[in-house]
């Protein structure tokens, strides 16, 4: 329970004070009419007990008037509860969303590679919607479900402790039932969540691969897997409902059976003469109402569990530690790897004991078969992750001690996957330096060979690009990212040379743009075509996560090792032919 409040309030239970207080007040205000009805009954009772005296209508009119006046109090209390719960729900969710967003932006780039962005988006949007809902609906319900029975019990104990005990004795058993079956519930919910995620993955796979599915006539077979996952989701959902139902109903039955126990006790005590009739009446009237809020809470039990789970997922990300460090890197300093070992999964290292130094303002190429760790080296320089062993230092300062934002301020990355924002082309370039003038933006665009194609667009630099930048070709996107980097003017450039699927003219334009970018900077190049790097200052040859060779092109050729072998293989490319 406390856990539930802790999580839905984003760790700040105090924020829930106002709605809880309002719910308490509202609950107390709501008890009054019940007491007034009891008084009406007693008046009627007296007229039955002593018919000679007759009905005291004067008293009843007074009570009636009071009931109508009290409606105003009920309105005031309820309006305040409504106002408080919604205000707090929306404010807590808004501040929670912002706090989570603020936290997320401090996490390492590696975190974003590891987590599915759709998942993170859900946390920020739909999970918080769930939290909003639970604060505005379940919290006041919970408060009255606890308060009304508690208050009644306390008051009724003074009236007649035997009757009070009879009425409430079963409540703990209801709670016990839910507590005892918690593991079953948890297991079923977990299975349900797993079936749901599985169906989502299969659906993702089906939709993303729909081209291949159509081309290979696999509508049937692949579809069968998707269908099965939907089918399993259906069974898991039905099972969850089917098993949770009896437990919740059992808990309801147990709590509410107190009424019957109380009636039984009352009838014996009454006949035995140790219970007065008005007291029995009082218990009957209260017993009729006191369990209603508890029933509502039990009805919404599943929903509350689900909300708590949403809140828990949010808290998990909030507990993800951001990268530490506050030092700033000096530009144009050497980058040194000293016995660096790193793996995305610590048990299977991608880099093993790698040491090398990159001199400032030189070009270093990373070479090796796919999967040898080239990209990882580049990403470690930008501190996507921290190495598990060894030190990476820039100008002698370990990157571990650098403020990640300050480090990134001096690093430009030109990779193949270029993210364009839903904004104009001009602003997409300006991302490199937010305060750049239009003239500076155009200057960078010219040097990155994008000015021409941008000028040909109907709205020029003001042309909007879609989400993910779908309206531009791959080569155009790459050149825009180079323009950004030029504008950013960082001293370290991490470059993925791959110019796959660019037509020759685009490829040439990208190459010209890269030539502009590498001047007077420390360049680390992930190289694919060895021809490109014949004249770079240093080549690091990686093989299975280890540094196999280093040297210039000529030195490496002379060594007759892995590099020379790769070089020979690449010389042979002579094209497609079907009539040899």
């Amino acid at each position: 329970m406390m856990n539930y409040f802790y999580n839905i309030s984003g760790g700040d239970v105090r924020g829930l004070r106002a709605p809880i207080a309002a719910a308490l007040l509202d609950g107390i205000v709501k008890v009054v009419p019940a007491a007034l009805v009891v008084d009406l009954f007693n008046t009627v009772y007296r007229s039955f007990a002593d018919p000679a005296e007759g009905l005291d209508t004067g008293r009843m009119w007074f009570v009636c008037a009071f009931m109508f006046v009290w409606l105003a109090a009920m309105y005031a209390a309820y309006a305040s509860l409504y106002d408080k719960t919604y205000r707090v729900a929306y404010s807590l969710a808004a501040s929670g969303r912002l706090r989570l967003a603020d936290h997320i932006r401090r996490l390492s780039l590696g975190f974003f590679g590891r987590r599915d962005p759709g998942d993170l988006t859900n946390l920020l949007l739909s999970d918080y919607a769930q939290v909003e809902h639970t604060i505005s609906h379940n919290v006041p319900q919970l408060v009255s479900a606890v308060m009304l029975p508690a208050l009644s019990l306390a008051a009724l104990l003074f009236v007649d402790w035997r009757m009070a005990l009879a009425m409430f004795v079963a409540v703990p058993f209801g709670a016990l039932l839910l507590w005892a079956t918690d593991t079953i519930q948890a297991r079923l919910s977990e299975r349900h969540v797993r079936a749901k995620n599985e169906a989502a993955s299969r659906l993702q796979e089906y939709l993303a691969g729909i081209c291949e599915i159509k081309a290979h006539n696999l509508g049937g077979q692949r579809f069968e897997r998707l269908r099965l996952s939907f089918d399993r989701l259906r069974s898991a959902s039905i099972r969850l409902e089917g098993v949770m139902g009896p437990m919740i109903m059992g808990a309801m039955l147990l709590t509410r059976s107190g009424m019957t126990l109380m009636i039984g006790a009352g009838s014996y005590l009454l006949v035995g003469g140790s219970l007065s009739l008005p007291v029995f009446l009082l218990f009957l009237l209260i017993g009729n109402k006191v369990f209603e809020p508890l029933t509502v809470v039990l009805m919404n039990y599943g929903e509350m569990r689900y909300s708590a789970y949403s809140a828990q997922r949010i808290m998990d990300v909030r507990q993800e530690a951001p990268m530490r460090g506050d030092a700033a890197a000096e530009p144009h300093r050497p980058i040194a790897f000293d016995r660096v070992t790193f793996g995305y999964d610590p048990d299977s290292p991608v880099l093993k004991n790698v040491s090398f130094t990159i001199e400032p303002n030189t070009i270093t190429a990373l070479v090796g078969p796919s999967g040898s760790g080239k990209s990882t080296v580049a990403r470690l320089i930008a501190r996507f992750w921290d190495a598990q062993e060894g030190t990476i230092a820039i100008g002698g300062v370990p990157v571990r001690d650098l403020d990640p934002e300050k480090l990134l301020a001096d690093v430009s990355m030109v990779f193949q996957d270029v993210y364009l924002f839903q904004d104009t082309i001009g602003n997409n370039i300006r991302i490199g330096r937010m305060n750049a003038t239009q003239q500076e933006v155009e200057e960078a665009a010219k040097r990155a060979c994008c000015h021409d194609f941008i000028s040909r667009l109907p709205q020029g630099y003001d042309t909007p690009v879609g989400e993910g930048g779908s309206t531009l070709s791959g080569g155009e996107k790459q050149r825009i990212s180079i323009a950004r980097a030029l504008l950013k003017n960082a001293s370290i450039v991490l470059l993925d040379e791959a110019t796959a699927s660019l037509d020759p003219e685009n490829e040439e334009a990208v190459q010209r743009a890269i030539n502009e970018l590498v001047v007077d900077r420390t360049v680390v190049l992930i190289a694919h075509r060895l021809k490109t790097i014949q004249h770079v200052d240093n080549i690091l040859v990686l093989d299975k996560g280890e540094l196999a060779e280093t040297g210039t092109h000529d030195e490496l050729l002379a060594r007759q090792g892995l590099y020379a072998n790769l070089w020979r293989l690449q010389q042979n490319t002579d094209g497609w032919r079907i009539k040899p």
Partner: protein
Amino acid sequence: MNSRSELSSLIRIAGEKKGLLLTAGLFSAVSSVLQIAPFLAVYRIIEELLMHAGDPAGVDKDLILFWGLAALVALIAVLATLYISGMCSHIAAFDILYRLRVRLSEHVAKVPMGYHTRTATGELKKIIEISVEKIEKFIAHQLPDVVSAVIMPLLLLSYLFWLDWRMALVLLVPISVAFWLQARMFASEASRQAYRDFQSAVEEMNATGVEYIRGMPAVKVFGITADSFLTFKQAVDRYRDISLRITDICKTSYSLFFVIVVSLFTFVVPVGLLLMSGRPGDQSFAITFILFLIVSPSLSVPLLKMLYLGSGLREIAEGNKRIEAVFAEPVIAEPAAPRIPDTYDVAFEQVSFAYEKEISKDFKPVLKNVSFLARAGEMTALVGPSGGGKSTIANLLLRFWDVQEGVISIGGVPIRGIGTEKLMEMVSFVFQDVHLFYDTIEENIRMGNAAATKAEVEAAAKAACCHAFIEKLEHGYETKIGEGGTYLSGGEAQRIAIARALLKNAPILVLDEATAYADAENEHLIQQALAELVKGKTVLIIAHRLSTIRAAEQILVVNQGEIVERGTHDELLGRGGLYERMWQAHVRAASWKLASEEKRASRPMAAEGGRR
């Protein structure tokens, strides 16, 4: 938004499980009527107590015990019927969800690929996942609730009318006022406007939220996390402000509604008192009055439920509209009498094509009057600038779209007359962006030919140069790909796709930039292996690296939707046209070297730039 038609389409969906839903509704009604029973039991006991108010010892203990137990039995019956109703409606709901998802997935596989290029995968996924999910609430909870929320008050009010029409009539007044207050609030311009604003605020927050997360890596790299955070913050703040505005608008009328509905008995009191004053000493009327006080609170739960029904409907309407839109997409027409070609020459005759309809404002012809013949046993290469229409030509052959003008035929038979299934059997296709399935590597290759033996799978893998790297994996061919399995590099994935295509061994082979991500050394090996395997087939190749297609029997240069030049490499080189220009650019690009010497040579210019 036309909520009436939304409702009817939902009811149509629900109609598929009529039996279960009727049962659910029936039990829900029974359950809601039984819910009155405990109130009545209490009333009976109180009646007995009042009747013996003078001599408490004369109270019939057994009668009280009977009603006490009756209340418990009624409660058990309420819960049991509720459970039956809930299970029926949930089973129906989950089954409808399942069927809807299956039908949606089936449908999207039958619509032309054009639909999938226009519609983001994420959007479609959201419809099948989330929009469908929302229907569960409507069917599993709200349909039975409608029944109980309508039947229970009707029955109870009829009973109360029968007992005493004057007090019952008085109950109707506050109920009507409460609903009128709510209706007036919903209909007011302020609330309509607020609701519209709310919708747009939700959409804006969702859109900025998605971009905030998706763009975060890029944003971090450029150190502008603060700005992007501000954009999101503004959207979140706006959403909160509008939500609070709606809270303010709804507060008064909803609070009044709530207080009235939970205080219905209050309104009975004055009327009851008036009537009682008229006949003092009438004990039976006093007891009826007591009954009204005890039973009328049980009206409040269904009345409160009724209010939520409208809002729930609104919630699913939007998603339902999207589901309907997916179903409205026409599927590809299949021929009545499929014809099978004998030869596999591919011919385009005067083909014109655009992704949009001609009347659309986005209309942009992609192919104009394209004609060519790709002969079996020959290699036809498509080259040209990006966006020129090369991939479109290849995709049209698979009938991912139907052309607007002209005819595409295989061995003289128009592809529309072949039938998609047969057509797919005739063509092997290696796409630029390869998609591997969450399955073993072996199964991923076997997709090409489900009947292939392990040896055949391995042979194809060897030809496509993936055998070596697969063998190096811990589980070899049994290695699972993706989602906790192994992730392959772009080049490796592409080679798997080539193996898949080789295994399929179809008479027509289309390679769309099939080795774009392959390492240079592997590219060479793949090209060698393929040369053997594709003898006699019709081969269409799209390539950017012109050196790789020099040997093609026919090169088609595609630019802005037209074939501007055609011929062999040698013929085209002499022509001084686009191909020759591209070839020169290719040669220059291929000899490009990133080097320190170049850097020094260009330093003056760069230094000028650096000083800005």
